[in-house]
């Protein structure tokens, strides 16, 4: 095989990335202590240290992981996912749909054609919902940011509980037989014939899809990340430690349902919400409450509900919100109780 430029560049880039990434902390310290000569321990010094270290760290993680996710995603098209889910029994189907929801490229503006394409080719309603819940909630940007700011354990908890909610909520919707609340025309529509072919893509083109993903996603979220970390850096030394404790701390049991309720109409991308959550936790909010808030903001959004209203009747949308919201609350209570 002739070595393609698009394959060689990432291979050269990878060690460079690693050297820079692993030297970020000493470099930051050197910059702050030696070059700027700032006083150690002062509020401004530590706030600046936090920002100069955290921002490049998170952006570098994003670039690297989104690149590989972009390549991985080129293998998972909506058509393949649908084929895998057609006529699947519930539960196994719910598990598969939730897992595929993580890796299949999904944009909420495609929610309607995707929903119709799934349901009309025989994917059960509950299984379709598992997909529609997992796809936005377990989002690569959210996972990377959680990993970067809280470590792998919190990231793993997020993935695990997000999957559990998507699987169970879809399963419950399937068991309740809510098909009667899908708009009638949905089942009456016939899909067009043919044209369902797969794209034949060369590997070098998949790599360029990795670049495209980086350009598109990192280009869109870096500003939110910067702002979020800036707020975090500002709060670092200046806002009192227990500021949020009485409002979102463990002792306030009502904080979980309240956070979920506030989160439903709020709409933000993962990049904006994670840094805010990190500030909340640092200032005394409990992990369960903060996670519940974050899940509610990302997974349940008003714009998506309005889009889905075209194909679903109101009772089904409300049941969907109630079931997923309930699941998120259970996760919140569970983690407040464990930690």
């Amino acid at each position, binding site marked *: 095989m002739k070595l393609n430029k698009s394959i060689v560049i990432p291979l050269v880039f990878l060690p460079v990335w690693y050297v820079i990434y692993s030297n970020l902390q000493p470099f930051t310290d050197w910059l702050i202590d030696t070059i700027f000569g700032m006083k150690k321990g002062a509020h401004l010094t530590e706030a600046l240290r936090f920002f100069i270290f955290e921002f490049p760290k998170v952006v570098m993680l994003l670039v690297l992981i989104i690149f590989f996710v972009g390549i991985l995603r080129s293998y998972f098209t909506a058509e393949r996912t649908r084929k895998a889910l057609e006529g699947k029994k519930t539960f196994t189907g719910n598990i598969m749909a939730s897992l595929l929801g993580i890796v299949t490229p999904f944009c909420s503006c495609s929610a309607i054609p995707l929903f119709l394409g799934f349901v009309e080719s025989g994917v059960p309603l509950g299984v379709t919902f598992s997909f529609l819940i997992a796809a936005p909630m377990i989002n690569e940007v959210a996972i990377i940011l959680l990993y970067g700011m809280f470590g792998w354990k919190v990231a793993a908890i997020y993935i695990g509980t997000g999957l559990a909610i998507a699987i169970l909520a879809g399963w419950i919707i399937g068991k309740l037989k809510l098909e009667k609340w899908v708009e009638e025309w949905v089942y009456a529509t016939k*899909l067009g014939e043919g044209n369902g072919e797969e794209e034949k893509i060369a590997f070098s083109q998949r790599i360029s899809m990795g670049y495209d993903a980086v350009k598109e996603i990192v280009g869109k979220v870096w500003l939110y990340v910067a702002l979020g970390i800036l707020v975090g850096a500002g709060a670092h030394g200046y806002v009192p430690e227990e500021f949020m404790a009485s409002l979102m701390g463990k002792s306030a049991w009502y904080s979980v349902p309240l956070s979920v309720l506030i989160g439903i109409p709020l709409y933000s991308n993962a990049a904006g919400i994670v840094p805010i959550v990190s500030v909340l936790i640092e200032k005394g909010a409990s992990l369960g409450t903060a996670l519940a808030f974050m899940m509610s903001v990302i997974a349940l959004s008003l714009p998506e509900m309005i889009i889905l209203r075209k194909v679903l009747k109101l009772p089904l949308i409300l049941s969907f919100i109630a079931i997923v919201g309930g699941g998120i609350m259970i996760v919140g209570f569970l983690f407040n109780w464990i930690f």
Partner: protein
Amino acid sequence: MNIQVLGTGCPKCKTLEKAVREIVAESKLDATVTKVDDIMEILKFNVMTTPALVIDGKVVLKGRVPSMDELKQILTTKIYFL
């Protein structure tokens, strides 16, 4: 040549439509470009991810906005990957 851009109005769909029109004008292609917004019409092409590009009734691209170079190649040579 009959070119259709399928999309329900998301930002990416508008980007694709604009790019297609630019290339058609720039390369002086003999083509009519129409935007298909109606979901029922889009479903007739069995497309689940938008935006999608249809040339003479055949879906040639779906779910992504290609680079200008790739799009130009598709439109001028009709060589595509689907």
